[in-house]
């Protein structure tokens, strides 16, 4: 067992699960989507991206690309949230919907990332 591999896999899966947890629920309902979960998803996604830096293989490049997409989507969602208002109480249904749909895009990228991780792991017969 390799500690580096554990950490790598941990952050990638955690990024995907947190993202999923945030997106899960009624799209336009602010009650179903918590700010802290979004924050955690964002931070973990950034960490996952940094972890993928510097891998020169083809698989590594795709890994990095998916993470960059996820971070970009989440950053867009964060921007929408920040511009909508200082408090999370007064979010309109349309604002919440756009935040959640942007995060859903990030979720898709994270799912691709996790899929690559699984495929890569099963390819190695060790």
């Amino acid at each position, binding site marked *: 067992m390799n500690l580096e591999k554990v950490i790598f896999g941990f952050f990638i899966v955690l990024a995907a699960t947190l993202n999923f947890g945030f997106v899960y629920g009624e799209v336009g309902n602010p009650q179903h989507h918590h*700010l802290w979960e979004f*924050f955690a998803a964002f*931070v973990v996604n*950034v*960490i996952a991206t*940094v*972890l993928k*830096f*510097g*891998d*020169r293989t083809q698989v590594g490049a795709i890994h990095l690309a998916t993470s960059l997409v996820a971070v970009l989507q989440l950053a867009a969602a*964060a921007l929408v949230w*920040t511009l909508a208002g*200082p*408090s999370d109480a007064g979010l309109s249904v349309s604002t919440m919907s756009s935040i959640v749909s942007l995060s859903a895009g990030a979720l898709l990228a994270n799912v691709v990332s996790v899929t690559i991780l699984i495929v890569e792991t099963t390819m190695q017969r060790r």
Partner: protein
Amino acid sequence: MSSVIFIALRRLRAPLILLVAVFALGIVGLVLIPGVDAEGRAWHLTVFQALYFMTYTATTIGFGELPREFGQAQRIWVTVVIFLSVVGWAYLVASLLGLARDKAFRGALVAGRFRRRVRALREPFYLICGFGETGLLVGRALDWLGTRFVAIEIDETRAQELELLDLAQDAPALAGDARLPENMLAAGLAKRECRGVLALTNDDHANLAVAMSVRLLNPNIPVLCRAMSPQTAANMASFGSDHIINPFAKFGEYLALAIASPAGYRLASWLAGLPGTTLKAQTAPPRGHWIVCGYGRFGREVVQAFRGQGIDVTVIDPNDAGVADLRAVRGRGTEAEPLLAAGVDLAAGIVAGTDDDVNNLSIAVTARALNARLFTIVRQNLQANRALFEAYAADITMVSSEIVANECLARLKTPALGRFLELARGKGDAWAEALLERLIAALGDQTPEIWSVAISATGAPALHRALMLEKGKVLLGDLARDSGARERRNACVPLLLTRGGGSLPLPAEEVPLRAGDEVLFAGAPRARRAQSPMLSNVNVRDYVLSGIDLPGGLISMWAARKRRARR
């Protein structure tokens, strides 16, 4: 470039993750810990406000407590966060500094710059593999001739020294192994502008590898190889290397020529010399009994040259195995006994040809002390010992790096010169003597510039047009006319006229030129510059050939035609 970014990203992974973690922790704390406003109500920072505060605090910009004053609990947390973020930044900066000092990273930076510079080269250039003594000489001479070059050198400090040379050009140098095709390609082997490759490393096997990669990766360009051993030379020849230069064999050839035809030798070494060499008044090696110290690769060639001329030789070598039908004395030659045993007191000359400079000088000094009239040939191995050899002033000093550099330049600059010297060798001593006198009278005793003019659509478009389309007549002598005043002659002498398969040495001025001819000239650099307008400019050509100064523009040409028609 991309490899630089990848190395940097990989190295900065840990500090970046630490910074992200510190920011996230700080933001969480700032949002969760409440402040108290003037009315005693609790308030919270939003996530964005917390991020904003973290950004200016962690980077030590410090705008103060925004959007309003913090409470006690918030300040405690901010203190913790400041220390954490300072550690994070310090770690990042330390990693960056470490990266800048890192050898692999700097190597990647330098290699990236080298690649970009080679890619940007848009002029013809030569690729020099191995920038040691020989490479340096060739590089300097190419620079003097205004030709670009790219160098690959395995020794990093030597490659860096190239940047410190006072060259007119900015020559890219790669510190790398020329045996790797990857390095050769990075140095522009496959580029259209690459005119030729010179394999001049001090490792025969590396030169062989270079020749092989040129043959396979860019078969159309010539490759010049230095080969110290006959085996390597044979191997190189087996896959069609164009030019193989063995300095020892070359010196043997020169020596044989110098004995058989002293003037021929002087002519050859003067014409093929490095730019700026002056003709030395040299005495020819005398016939008689010779002593050769050191029977290695060099000694063998020298002995062969002497015996080819029917000269009797005694060899002095510490191990005399393999010297079958030769008179040999066992020893070093640095002491008097072996020299006397070899008959130094009655000898005509001595060759100090071991691979140790100090021993060679010691042999020469000892031998001269025993016989002051000895003709001395001393082998100099290292350029660094030049001062010593100059002070000793042997009759001939053999420097293998100079021989190889000379050979390379002669073959790169003007392949026709080799053919001319080959022909000159067969003409005898008196012919060479007469030619030498004629050349010195016309051009002075500095090594002249040698160039060839091809009467072709690309080499001399104006002349080619005159011969092919306008059915004009051009005499060889016209090429030497001055383009400003046609009755004056430029300081140049035609050495060789090549037509079809045959060549004519020292052609007369009255020979009419034909399209496809190639003329080899020796002359002052000024003469070459003065000649080029006539080759490419139709108006200059007309003036030089006929003496009529025609107007150049379309309107004045039309007016001139009208005027002529009226007359």
